[in-house]
């Protein structure tokens, strides 16, 4: 009986733990180890050399990609958060329970469609003879180069992040005590004052977490910068793909990957710290 209890306990804890150790933790650890290996005669060779790190850190292409990725992801996360806020507010406070349910279902749908296809579909809208430029043409405006620019990448990132950002913001706002908002109204605070002094401070953790998810998603994405941004200025993900797919330089790609993970961990820690600052 107690043997069975112990056996069950260790099977249930052990099985998923073993899987994630073997196929999640170890691969990531190996990435770190591999960044110190060398490539000899196109063969990955165990080694302990700082060469890859030195090479990558000295490259201007790495730093310009790093900067570009940071700026784009920051822009995407901030614009997604700002654009989502009024929608999340409206879904949380102005829709009936039934309409809210429909809105949430509509926002969940994009998670289950291939992001690749959605990015491709944006080409239909953004290309030189696409939907937007056809509409602009009707107004007598000459085609604008939406596609193959940072703007194209940004549209792709927003496609990726917006549904998640709205949903997380809604989750946060739904937890606000309604009587706080009524109290603000009764004390004759206007809508803006209510938003800035009641809603945003109360929902702050979820707003920051939503921002963080948008940042993480955009920072790691390679589809939008490649197929909507034109791939002219590579992001770090593009750099990894190029390094892996052409030339077998896996250790150098590992250096880029570790740099990305370090950036994401630091950003997450800072964001979570900011989110819960001043809360007990």
């Amino acid at each position, binding site marked *: 009986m107690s043997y069975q209890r112990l056996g069950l306990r260790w099977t249930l*804890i052990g099985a998923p733990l073993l899987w994630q150790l073997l196929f999640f933790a170890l691969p990531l650890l190996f990435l770190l180890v591999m960044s110190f290996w060398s490539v000899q005669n196109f063969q990955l060779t165990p080694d302990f050399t700082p060469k890859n790190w030195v090479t990558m850190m000295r490259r201007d292409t790495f730093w310009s990609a790093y900067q570009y990725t940071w700026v784009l992801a920051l822009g995407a996360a901030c614009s997604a958060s700002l654009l989502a806020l009024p929608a999340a507010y409206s879904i949380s406070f102005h829709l009936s329970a039934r309409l809210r349910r429909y809105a949430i279902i509509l926002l969940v749908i994009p998670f289950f469609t291939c992001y690749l296809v959605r990015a491709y579909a944006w080409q239909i809208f953004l290309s030189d003879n696409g939907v937007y430029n056809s509409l602009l043409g009707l107004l007598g405006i000459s085609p604008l180069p939406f596609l193959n620019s940072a703007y194209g990448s940004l549209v792709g990132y927003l496609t990726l992040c917006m549904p998640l950002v709205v949903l997380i913001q809604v989750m946060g706002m739904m937890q606000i005590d309604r009587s706080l908002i009524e109290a603000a109204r009764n004390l004759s605070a206007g809508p803006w004052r209510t938003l800035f002094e009641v809603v945003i401070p109360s929902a702050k953790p979820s707003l920051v977490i939503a921002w963080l998810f948008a940042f993480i998603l955009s920072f790691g994405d390679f589809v939008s910068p490649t197929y909507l941004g034109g791939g002219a200025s590579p992001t770090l993900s593009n750099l990894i793909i190029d390094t892996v797919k052409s030339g077998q330089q896996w250790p150098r790609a590992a250096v880029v990957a570790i740099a990305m993970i370090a950036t994401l961990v630091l950003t997450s820690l800072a964001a979570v710290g900011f989110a819960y600052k001043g809360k007990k």
Partner: protein
Amino acid sequence: MWNLIRSSGRLYTLAVIAVILAPLAASLVFSFNADRFPSLPLKGFTTEWYVLTFTDPLVIDAFQRSFLVAIPVGLVSTLLGFAAAYSDYRYSFRGKSLFNLMMLLPPTIPAVIMGLAMLAYLSRVGLAGNAYSIFISHVVTGLPFAMALIRLRLAQMDPSLEQAAWNLRASPVQSLVHVVIPFSLQSLFAAFLITTAVSFDEFAVAWFVSGLEETVPVRVLVFLQGQVSPRINAIGTAIFATSILLVVLAMSFSGLGKSSKPPETP
């Protein structure tokens, strides 16, 4: 003032949802458009792209492989996700927060990095470049979703239910099989369908580790690297239909879950 805000807020929400869903609608509409290049006005109705797509042996092959990978991924992710969710619900042990972190972290790691790490690691142990490597990687990403869904359901279960079963001399395994699993059955189905859909849609890690064994989204990626083709819209609409079917099924299962009760006698 409040009313103006209210109605403009609703209008804005509608616009945001419309923009989010616009690419889906566009890809559906243009998958039936006769013109090879996507532009307005539409040229006329055709099913040519669907015929072209689904007579392409590479696409058929990719669909078969996708299902062959996604269904086992759904099964194993759900089993492991249940084990992880139940461990979190029932047991307390040292390093539990680290355990949960390791279970739930994978979706936050960028897919390109996971792809590189899995490719490097799996090729070291001789598992890269085939359908197994996709299966292994997708379970890593699927497990967190399954765990989260099942954990939510377990949170609704009264812990004394299981204790009652133990008092009635049910063994831990018996109470698990006759109390816990029936209680969370709908969430298990939902988790299976969602993780299957997750695997069916994932392209970045699959692209890295699969070598020449393409799944459907990897096939789309290859199409994308080539020239503009309405076949991408056709194949995208097919993927969408498959995923939505899975999700609608999952939702109806988890919807049923709310009214279910555990059996009265084990």
